[in-house]
């Protein structure tokens, strides 16, 4: 895994439903430095709402969110 701050980490949470996507996300975030980006893919119907709540709590930024059968979000760690 590339450890430079700009490199993206991709988290595949397809097939996982509440609460797994944000559980996996919070675990992955812990290992990343500030300014790192992470991409997460999920098809959990609650994913968008949970992600927004989760991001609000920690102050990270959602750089992009592509809604689809599988949604793809790019986050920036604060």
């Amino acid at each position: 895994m590339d450890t430079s701050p700009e490199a993206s980490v991709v988290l595949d949470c397809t097939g996982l439903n509440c609460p797994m996507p944000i559980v996996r996300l919070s675990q992955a975030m812990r290992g990343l430095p500030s300014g790192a980006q992470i991409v997460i893919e999920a098809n959990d119907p609650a994913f968008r709402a949970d992600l927004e709540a989760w991001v609000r709590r920690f102050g990270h930024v959602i750089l992009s969110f592509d809604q689809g059968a599988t949604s793809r979000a790019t986050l920036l760690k604060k």
Partner: protein
Amino acid sequence: MSDGTPPPLDPTLTAMIERMVDARVDARLAGFSAQVEEALARLRAQEGPQRDQASILVFSGDFDRLISAFIIATGAVAMGIEVSMYFTFWGLVALKKQTTFAGKTIEEKMLSAMLPGGPANTGTSKMNMLGMGPIMFKRVMAQNNVETLPGLIKLAQDLGVKLIACRMAMGVMGIKDEELIDGVQYGGVATYLGDAIESKITLFI
């Protein structure tokens, strides 16, 4: 002077008056700034590195209620909240790994026989339909990729959720230590209340 303003003062006098004013103001402010410092210190102490806490009291032993409790618990950890779960009465079933009968009174043995053997054997609070309900719900959950109850319990432990068994309820229900999973702590009502009073989220499930 004719425009009403007082004549300019001697510079030495001006300097002396300024020094006196400064001294008076400092004296008056000293007490006040000490109070502000103290208040700020107290505020900082509260906002400190303490994490938010959640305290979940699990009284129910129903499959559906236990699923809720563990989804909330694991979700809370993902939100950066420190979680403790207290299991009392029917909720103790969630912590069971086996049923033993040795060393129990007749009443305790009867209770042990009637209680579910563990979380996987729990019934739903409604539509249990003699056990058909949970079977159907588990199938639907699998189709929707929802974690199983034993899976959620293990996840909670792995994530550091504190699982605490109520000593008193264990006595009443005739449940022995060896019947519970490893990693469980034990406590009483004060254990629960001590954590609950510090928690932003307290739930009774």
